[in-house]
């Protein structure tokens, strides 16, 4: 049997990679992809928690996380498409006119 800690280590590594992606990417779409990666890491933690406690609640919450991620992606991509139409670029270094 694999110890639960190993699953949590994988999840932590995925989360750290997602954070690193936020630092290193300058394309709005790829920043969204990094956020998806971090959400997936959180989901792995939740499902591992469900298995550790022998209760299905963690899996239900992972399900809700997926639903909310789907809604978030819809709006995020709509905003990205709008940005691209307005400025012909999705590079955060070039989108500097968003300052209030």
């Amino acid at each position, binding site marked *: *049997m694999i110890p*639960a800690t190993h699953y949590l280590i994988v999840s932590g590594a995925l989360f750290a990679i997602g954070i*690193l992606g936020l630092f290193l990417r300058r394309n709005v779409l790829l920043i969204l992809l990094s956020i998806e990666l971090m959400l997936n890491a959180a989901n792995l933690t939740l*499902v591992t928690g469900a*298995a550790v406690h022998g209760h299905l609640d963690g899996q239900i919450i992972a399900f809700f996380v997926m639903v909310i991620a789907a809604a978030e992606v819809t709006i995020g991509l709509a905003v990205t*498409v709008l940005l691209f139409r307005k400025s012909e670029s999705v590079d955060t270094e070039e989108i500097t006119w968003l300052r209030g």
Partner: protein
Amino acid sequence: MVEAIFFYLFAGIAILSALQVILQARPTRALLSLIVTMFALAVLFILLGAPFIAMIHLIVYAGAVLVLFLFVIMLQGIGAKEIPLEERFGPFYLGTAILLGACLLGGILLILSHASVGPLQPIEGTAKAIGHLLFREYLLPFELTSILLLLGVFAAVALAKKESDA
């Protein structure tokens, strides 16, 4: 034993393809790497006794969300090109970013090494079991997510419409 082989193989695939997600220069390749990560994670979910979550994960994420991403990336065409990391950032920024990521990972590992996590218990997250919980104990949150999704649709339509009017 078979379980251990599956776990370490697919955990390795998940982490390597996640690294590809943040290091690939081309957006499409990064996206396809994320799909590989999703498949590896689905295997881990099945190992954890969550076959229903694993299938939903594949259908919703790999099937729907990432294909949506792919459409938007293709819509952007040439505008989505990414400058390679080493040309864009100086060594100072890169070093700081990697250091911060490593600090986060180190912190997580430190916490995990001190935590006492119990052994995994065999549970079966079948569609039936999940459905029972979802439509009895979690009925209200479930209905609320439907409102959230409806609001998401409204927001997307409103965003698209404003642009066509202007």
